[in-house]
């Protein structure tokens, strides 16, 4: 019991710490060169002075822009202020030539080899080239952006976690793992025995690797997204491109493993003739359903993760929005915002787990539905 409390306290302190760091980071995007601070009240005072400075410079805080900057992708990985980890940019221009250079060459609106990061407009924040007529165009962009890099880190961490369990099993074959490893095994066992085996039965060995990888990758990415500083903090699962790939994989797995019975139920379901013959009403609905299933998966995960990040960012932004009303209001807002943000982050830990679980669970069920056999009557 005492140990539990210790852990909870530790988590709380860590979250407060990371959030404070995040808030400072947010402040630093407005004003560069500010040092990071830990104590909230100090932060509030400092932010106040920062805001006054900003007002002097006639550069008001724009919460919408700041929030979406934080949620969106970028070419380098901004840690704090101007401190950015450069990431590789890989683009192909109109002429079919490939370019490979560091993102630091494009920082501060610089142009390198005819490419620059677009400002306002259709391609805002993206790398664009200028063609012969002087118009901006979007090159074929394979850059390893912040999100792509974050996905790689999450993949590596997932691998590390899973292989640690494999190594444990190889070394101590018939020993039950304890502590962290025990928790990991408990999750694997829960997913495998309670979900995969109970839905897929004999075929579970065939689909378990995909489903377990899916769960652990989503879960690790979600948890990484909660860490405000460098290796984490990217809004990975709250990005449609990422969830699109996962949904696409599930879509492929579902339809590749579809049995004859599955396809028959789609194109020629067992309903009265009127519903399918002159006007193929039910087949159309069924075909529509084939696509809506993965799309629902995609949107669900995306919206949940985006929502969590958004709430925390909005709460932190409140500090800056209220700062114009004086120091007392600012201080109170800072304390309450951070407290609420910590609360939301804790809930987000839960949501991160649940969404990974739901994505996996529904994938399992859809695969199970695609593996239907004709019931012998």
């Amino acid at each position: 019991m005492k140990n539990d409390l210790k852990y909870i306290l530790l988590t709380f302190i860590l979250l407060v710490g990371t959030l404070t760091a995040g808030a400072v980071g947010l402040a630093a995007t407005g004003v560069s060169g500010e040092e990071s601070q830990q104590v909230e009240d100090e932060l509030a005072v400092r932010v106040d002075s920062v805001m006054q400075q900003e007002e002097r410079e006639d550069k008001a805080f724009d919460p919408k822009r700041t929030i979406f900057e934080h949620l969106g992708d970028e070419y380098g990985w901004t840690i704090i202020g101007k401190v950015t980890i450069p990431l590789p940019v890989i683009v192909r221009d109109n002429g079919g030539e490939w370019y490979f250079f560091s993102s630091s060459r494009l920082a501060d609106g610089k142009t390198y080899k005819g490419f620059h990061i677009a400002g306002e407009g259709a391609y805002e924040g993206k790398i664009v080239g200028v063609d012969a007529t002087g118009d901006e165009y979007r090159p074929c962009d394979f850059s390893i952006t912040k999100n792509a890099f974050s996905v790689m880190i999450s993949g590596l961490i997932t691998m590390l976690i899973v292989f640690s369990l494999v190594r444990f099993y190889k070394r101590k074959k018939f020993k039950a793992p304890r502590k962290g490893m025990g928790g990991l095994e408990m999750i694997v066992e829960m997913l495998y025995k309670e979900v995969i085996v109970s839905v897929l039965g004999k075929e579970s060995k065939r689909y378990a690797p995909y489903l377990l990888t899916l769960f652990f990758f989503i879960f690790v990415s979600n948890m990484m997204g909660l860490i405000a500083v460098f290796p984490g903090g990217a809004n990975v699962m709250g990005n449609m491109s990422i969830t699109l790939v996962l949904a696409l994989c599930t879509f492929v797995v579902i339809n590749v493993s579809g049995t004859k019975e599955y396809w028959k139920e789609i194109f020629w379901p067992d309903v009265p003739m009127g519903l399918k013959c002159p006007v193929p009403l039910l087949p159309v609905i069924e075909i529509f359903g084939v696509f809506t299933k993965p799309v629902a998966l995609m949107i669900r995960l995306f919206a949940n993760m985006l929502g969590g990040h958004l709430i925390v960012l909005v709460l932190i932004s409140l500090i800056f929005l209220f700062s114009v009303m004086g120091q007392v209001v600012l201080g109170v807002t800072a304390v309450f915002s951070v407290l609420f943000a910590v609360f939301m982050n804790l809930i987000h830990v839960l949501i991160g787990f649940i969404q990974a679980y739901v994505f996996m669970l529904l994938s399992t069920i859809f695969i199970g539905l695609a593996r239907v056999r004709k019931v012998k009557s």
Partner: protein
Amino acid sequence: MSLFTPEFGLVFWMLVVFLILFGILAKYAWPAIVRMMDERADFIDKGVEYAREAKRDREKAQEDAKDLLTEARKQQLEVLQQTERLKREMIAEARKAAENEAKQVREAANLSIEQAKREAELQLRKQVASLSLQVAEKVMRKDLATDKNQMELIGKLLNELENKE
């Protein structure tokens, strides 16, 4: 907004990373983990079964031991009884043998006594005979000196003979 419109580059990298991750984990990690988990579950099941069997065996062994003990006790009792009987028999036999021996010794003694007695009698008779002969001689010498005495004696003897018949 880039959040809602899939970015081709990101989709590409995500696909690459996810497929590589899936490939590696599906080949080297998950089957091993699932197999190990199953194996351990089997092992534990077997262990429980084994323990149950061992318990059953132990109970059976205990019962056997108890049976054996009662059997042994019964045999002990029997053996004891047998020895008792044997002892008594042996004592009886010994007594009988001793009696026989004693009887023989007694008989032998009796015999020798009888013999000695007879010999003694014989000797006595011989002595008595010789003594009486001597006495008779002496008497004869003295008494048969006269005819009268001889006549009287012959008459007496004849009377005696008559009386005897």
